[in-house]
Structure formats: structure tokens, C-alpha cells
């Protein structure tokens, strides 16, 4: 009985997760017909053809991927030393700083969107992928510090001490010993940066006024007087694929790592 339960529960959950998505995939392969007409939707590749030949959608994908990668490149080098410091040292104000970082992670973008736009337009970062990448650091840096810290906590402290006794300087220890050890951790962190940056809408919307529109906005722009739902669904399917690819690379590391609060 218990054995069956263990098999049925995950499968049932996966099935429920996939039901709405099956419908999306199904519609992405059907012709769009208006509600008033009597013709039946038929199978077609047209939506995907339109997706790949549309210059706006292509540019939108390119913009999204650009700022997500920029965000990862900004976040990881900054979060790594901070995570190490939180894990290994205790310094004045460390608890308060960690608290402040956490508070910024859970601050919804909508609270800071307006002043962020004002500040970024002053320094000319509106409509640029770099602007969005920087704005997304608000939540990717705290999340990355947290993930990396829990990975570093799992590395015995003796390793650092031995290396320092052997004459390693801190930067050299970081580069030659810690980084190779943390490679899976960095992969997982990059995945979570990707995840939170790719799906975010509020900053991405307010910081792109005239150009540099990300894929999220391109999907919104497809809605109009007569929406081509087939094309919308095809774009939705395509927008999930980069994340799946990222997940595939880190699939074996994602399950082992977090052990927050058990230093």
C-alpha cells in the first residue's frame, strides 16, 4: 500500500502540473480560428514557422537571453566572496547585513519600480539590457548568497586552514581550490539567477519603454483585437525551453546542496 502511494503521488502531481501545459502545446500546433466561425482548427506548423521568422520575437528572445546572462555575470562574482564571508567569518554587523539582503530579496519589484525607473533614466540605463540585469540583482544577489553560503558551509573548514598553512593567499585559495570545488554550486546558483530573472515582469516592463523589449513583453504585445492564440501558445512553449536546458545541465546538483541553518 505504502509502496504504491510513493509511486502514485509523484506521478499524479506531474500529471496535474502538465495538464495546463498539454493544452498550451496542443493549441500551439493548431490553426487559430475566430470564435464566430464554424471551421474546426487543424494541425499546423505555421505558428512555429511564424515564431521563427518574426524579427520582433527573435529580437525579444535575444534581449531576454542577453540580460539574463548579464545578470548571472554580475551576480556570481559579487555573491561568491560575500557568501564565503558570511559562511566563514563573523564581523561587525554581519547578522544585520544578512537580514537586509533577505529583506531586499522579498521586496516586491512593484514597490521599487517607480524610483528605479527615475534613477535609471537619469543615468541612461533605460531601454538597455544592462539596466534590467542590474535591477534584477535586487533579488538574484540575495538568493545567490544564500545558496552559495549553504554550499560553502558543507565544505569542511579544515580545507581552508590547511591551504593557508601551505602558504596559499586568500585570492589564490579562492581561484585554485574553492572555485573548482564549488563548480556545481555555481551551476545551481546560475540556474536560480536565470529562473528568477527570466520570469520577472515588473522591472522588465518599466525599464523598457521604446526598445529592448524582453520576451515577456513581446507575448503581451501579441494580444490585440484579434489575437493569434496559436502563435501566443507557440511563443509560450519556446519561452520555457531555455530554462529546461539550464535545468538539464544542473539536474544532478540541484538536489544536493541546500542545508540552510545547519552550520
Amino acid at each position, binding site marked *: 500500500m505504502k509502496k504504491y502511494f510513493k509511486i502514485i503521488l509523484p506521478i499524479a502531481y506531474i500529471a496535474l502540473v502538465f495538464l495546463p501545459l498539454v493544452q498550451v502545446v496542443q493549441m500551439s500546433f493548431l490553426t487559430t480560428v475566430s470564435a464566430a466561425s464554424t471551421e474546426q482548427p487543424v494541425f499546423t506548423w505555421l505558428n512555429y514557422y511564424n515564431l521563427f521568422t518574426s524579427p520582433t520575437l527573435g529580437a525579444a528572445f535575444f534581449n531576454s537571453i542577453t540580460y539574463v546572462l548579464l545578470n548571472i555575470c554580475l551576480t556570481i562574482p559579487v555573491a561568491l566572496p560575500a557568501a564565503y564571508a558570511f559562511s566563514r567569518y563573523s*564581523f561587525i554587523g554581519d547578522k544585520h*547585513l544578512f537580514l537586509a539582503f533577505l529583506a531586499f530579496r522579498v521586496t516586491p519589484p512593484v514597490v521599487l519600480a517607480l524610483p528605479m525607473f527615475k*534613477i535609471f533614466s537619469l543615468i541612461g540605463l533605460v531601454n538597455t539590457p544592462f539596466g534590467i540585469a542590474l535591477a534584477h540583482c535586487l533579488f538574484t544577489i540575495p538568493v545567490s548568497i544564500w545558496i552559495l553560503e549553504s554550499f560553502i558551509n558543507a565544505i569542511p573548514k579544515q580545507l581552508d586552514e590547511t591551504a593557508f598553512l601551505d602558504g596559499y593567499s586568500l585570492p589564490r585559495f579562492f581561484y585554485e581550490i574553492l572555485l573548482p570545488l564549488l563548480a556545481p554550486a555555481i551551476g545551481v546558483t546560475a540556474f536560480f539567477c536565470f529562473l528568477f530573472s527570466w520570469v520577472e515582469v515588473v522591472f522588465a516592463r518599466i525599464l523598457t519603454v521604446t526598445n529592448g523589449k524582453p520576451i*515577456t513583453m513581446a507575448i503581451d504585445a501579441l494580444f490585440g483585437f484579434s489575437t493569434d492564440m496559436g502563435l501566443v501558445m507557440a511563443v509560450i512553449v519556446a519561452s520555457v525551453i531555455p530554462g529546461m536546458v539550464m535545468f538539464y545541465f544542473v539536474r*544532478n546538483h540541484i538536489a544536493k546542496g541546500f542545508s540552510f*541553518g545547519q552550520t
Partner: protein
Amino acid sequence: MKTLNHKHGWAMVIPATIILSIVGVLPLLTVINYSFFDIFILDKRFWIGLEWYQELMQSPRFWASLGRSLLFSTLILTIQLPLGILIALAIPKRGIWVAICLMTMSVPLLIPWNVIPIIWLNYLRIDTGFLGQFFDFIGVDFDWKFNPIHTWLALILMDVWHWTSLVILLAYSSLSTIPTAYYQAAAIDRASRWQIFRYIELPKMSGILLMAILLRFMDSLMIYTEAFGINSGGPQNATLFLGIDLGEQIKAFDYGPSAARSVIYFIIILFIVWAFKTALDRQKSGGLK
């Protein structure tokens, strides 16, 4: 024990602190500044002190939306947390199944937030949507547009679908750090399944579960994009949450009132994070290791 090392410690957190000052502290100060002014356009503004705050504190609309958001977050947590833990416990510990389970379950997390309501409105359609047809089949006249209870149900189902996977991922990853020796010892002592969960798994997971609680509580408390996409806070403000109320005010360019509101929200956030951190410290020192 951690080493006391002030110099290195601070030097290493400075880059992160600088970036977060630019994208976090600076906008926050700007918002606090705006909140004391009546602003028509940004060049013409009048100092009015705490007037926006007084207005907000006396507005029943604000307290109602705060109540709705708290109710929503509580419902979300009571569903997602046990469900996430239960499913994480059911996923096998090793083998090819692990990657397949985690990967397929995480798909909703990878979908852009403004797309989530598009998918769900489609899913809920009575003529073509699977869930809409299901409701129709069991004889429920599901009307998310005009029936407040049905809108709430749609939002809760959507959020559970969207975010339970995060709880599963976190719970599973902390479960996988428990050494097999613990389970062997429990088997020797003839511990029941419940005892294993209560005295081995739950204490091991407690740190990460607190984190999951914080993330899920705050994100659902301040839900905006997904909830707005379903019914824009309707019907008749029945799903007007904190985030939606603020978002609408910003769209209307009400600088002063929306800034005051943002400051209030930030104070709520700080208070909850502080409470969470206190709980985490207590759990760390409480011998639950």
C-alpha cells in the same frame, strides 16, 4: 566556531553591498522622499508631511486589501507546505527517476509570470479548457469572472500549481543531505514512519523549511502580476491584494500616495523578515541540529 576577522569579512561583502545599495537602498530613499510630497509633475511638488500616511492608515480599502493578502498567504502556505513536503518524501532517493521528477515538476517555475494567467484563463475556459470542462462535467458552474469564491479558488489553484514545486525542490534537497546511517539507526530502534519524520527528517529540514515559508509567504503576500492577469482584482475588489492596489496606483502616476504605500509595505516586509530571522536564530540555538 567562526573566526573573528573583521577586515576580510567586510571587504568581501562590499561589492554585493554596493550593487544592492544602487538597486535597493537608493530607490528606497527616493520613495521615502516622494512620500512626503504632493506631486503633480516631478518638478512641481509640495511638502505635505505625513498626510499620505494618515490618509492610507484611515482608508478601509487599505486594511481590507491587507486582510485579503494575509488570508491569501495563509491559505497558500497551509496548502503548499504540507503538499510540497509530502511529495518530496515520495520522490525516490536515487536513480534516474530523481532527475526526471525534479525536472518535470519544476516546469511551472520556468514560465514567465505574465504568461501564467494566460495559460490558466485558457485552462479554465468552459468550452475548451480541460479544467473548465471538468467543472462543467461535475456540474459546477465555474464563473471566475463574477463569483468571488470562484476567483479565489482559481487564484489558489494557480498559485499552488505555480509554486509548490519550489517547496518540493527545497525540501527534497535538504532531505537528500540526511546520512543513511540515521535511517539505519531508526530502523534498529524500530521507529515508525511518523517518528522518523518527526525526529529525523523534520529537524533536518527545519532551516530550509523556514526559508521556504519566508519566500512563499512574502511572494504570495505581495502577489501582483499573476493575480492581476486573472481578474484585475475583481469581482468588486474581492481579490484586490496589496500588490494589485499599489500597481494600479503607480500606473495612474499617483507619485505621493503610491510612495507612502510602498514605504508602508516595506515596513511590513522588514517586520516579517525580522520575525523570521529571530525564529531561525532560535531554531539554530535550540539544539535541533
